[in-house]
């Protein structure tokens, strides 16, 4: 086991990207994610990679589109307003079946917002904030180690399924420092990027990367094909963590930073003799429906906790057995609105 290093969540993302062999980073500063471009502006050139601070988030996502179309690993990162501006580009990437990693360190909003942790962009991430009814892969780390590991996973899944992948965290996970093991890049077998534009080359045939599909039934067929791919993703790649769910009579569910706070609340509840468990989705898209379906066969009470007025709770309701109940506790984002373990324990007691 290699030595542990004590780093910020955002730095872990940047380190993982380099380990994953990212060739190009394109981004525009925005708090609370600027550590990522700052780290990469320092380290990526050393590795022969390209770092550009672009004039805007729109320019950045479209450079990612171009670099990815050319067959290399490319990424961008942003938050709130910047992610909104990238929606058209993400839609084009999805429509062109281009891989690429987008890191979204959520901050409070709407509008200008601020740097406080938020989970109110769950819908934007999982429903496709952009046009055309596409979906992307969304991974939700809850520790600095996962910021590192899931960033590398994002690159692999994105290349394998040819779907843009997003790492979705917030300022708590992004600014927090923890010791991690900088795991080496996994030996995943990746498909060759035969489709990439590299110059057609002597004799070889023309490659075209595009979203345009005007033939009769062509776009509809694409939608169904992607739909099937999303199903496959759901079966093969859904990831989640269960803690003390075995005999639980109430299952708390939350993702990212909230799941960290909730876990301590669950521990408190256990030591108070309450049979409470925690179900944490690690992949938000695909949403681990199967875990909810299975657990709700036995346990009929769920408590969904989010830093919003309720978004993931829809997916929970759509995933559980019909006779199971879901309570919701939300702390929408903003200064001074981060819940404490003590507070969540209270909620557990109330809903137990």
């Amino acid at each position, binding site marked *: 086991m290699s030595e542990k290093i004590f780093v910020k969540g955002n730095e872990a993302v940047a380190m993982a990207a380099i380990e994953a062999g990212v060739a190009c980073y394109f981004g525009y500063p925005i708090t609370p994610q600027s550590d990522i471009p700052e780290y990469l502006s320092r380290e990526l050139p050393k590795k022969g990679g*390209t770092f550009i601070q672009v004039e805007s988030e729109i*320019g950045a996502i*479209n450079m990612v589109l171009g670099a990815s179309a050319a067959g290399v690993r490319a990424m961008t990162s942003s938050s709130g307003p910047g992610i909104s501006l990238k929606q058209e580009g993400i839609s084009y990437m999805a429509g062109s079946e281009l891989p690429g990693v987008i890191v979204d360190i959520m901050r409070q909003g709407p509008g200008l917002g601020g740097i406080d942790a938020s989970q109110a962009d769950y819908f934007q991430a999982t429903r496709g904030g952009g046009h055309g009814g596409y979906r992307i892969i969304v991974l939700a780390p809850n520790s600095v180690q996962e910021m590192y590991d899931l960033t590398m996973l994002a690159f692999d899944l994105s290349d394998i399924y040819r779907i843009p992948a997003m790492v979705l965290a917030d300022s708590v996970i992004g600014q927090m420092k923890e010791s991690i093991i900088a795991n080496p890049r996994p030996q995943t077998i990746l498909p060759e990027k035969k489709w990439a534009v590299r*110059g057609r*080359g002597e004799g070889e045939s023309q490659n*075209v990367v*595009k*979203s345009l599909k005007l033939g009769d039934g062509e776009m509809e067929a694409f939608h169904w094909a992607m739909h099937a791919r999303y199903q496959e993703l759901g079966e093969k790649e859904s990831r989640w963590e269960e803690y003390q769910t075995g005999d639980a009579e109430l299952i708390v569910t939350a993702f990212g930073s909230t799941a960290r706070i909730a876990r301590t609340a669950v521990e408190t509840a256990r030591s108070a003799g309450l049979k409470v468990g925690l179900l944490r989705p690690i992949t938000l898209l695909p949403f681990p429906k199967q875990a909810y379906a299975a657990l709700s066969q036995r346990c009929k009470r769920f408590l969904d906790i989010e830093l919003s007025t309720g978004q993931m709770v829809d997916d929970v309701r759509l995933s559980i057995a019909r006779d199971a109940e879901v309570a919701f506790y939300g702390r929408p984002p903003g200064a001074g609105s981060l819940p404490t373990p003590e507070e969540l324990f209270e909620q557990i007691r109330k809903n137990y």
Partner: protein
Amino acid sequence: MKQVFDRPASLKDVQTHFCPGCHHGAIHRLVACALDEFNIRDKTIGCASVGCSVFLYGYFDIDVVESPHGRAPAVATGVKRARPDRMVFTYQGDGDLAAIGTSEIIHAANRGEDITVIFVNNTTYGMTGGQMAPTTMPGQKTSTSPYGRDINNDGAPFKMAELLSNLDGVAFSARVALNSPKNVLQAKKMIKTAFRYQVEGKGFSFIEALAACPTNWGMQPLAANERVGEEMIPYFPLGVYKNTENL
């Protein structure tokens, strides 16, 4: 008998969707000639934009990547940075480049990205049915300037070849037209020069081509062709606006 004029090899032998008398076809051919000239067809990536030239991949026998409306210079930057040894060009209309794509073209030019930009100025939005463009001329009637472009409300037409020349990153900038054999031959020379700059790694090269859009101008092809010479060229003078080789 020897064939002294034939279709360039980089241009597919297919019928285009362009309207009769549309200059896009001529500009396509000249770009293809440049690719042939430097024998770079196999190492060139074209960045298509959104407009009547959206089917770039259908006409050029090269790798092509589609760009969102106005973003071709950003897409081209991504491609070029990923594959610095390849030749990369964008092909954009005036709505695409001078309206929605203003930021992308200005910053790509300022960074001096080693790409070539072909900018087709036909003073209107062709594909969407003839709305006002940033280059629509004063008083010109379009479907969204039914009373003629009003400088006070809409501003004056953009002169991109001149404007971009002010940026240090721009190595070559010229304006050409396709309305006469003489201008076509001159345009061919300029487009080749623009690509030569990239081949020689000299930096960002820009070609503004004045073009006719008979359909949306509501003119017959010949009349539209004449308008280029009589109205456009006087307002958008042809010539080289920047040429770092002469510095």
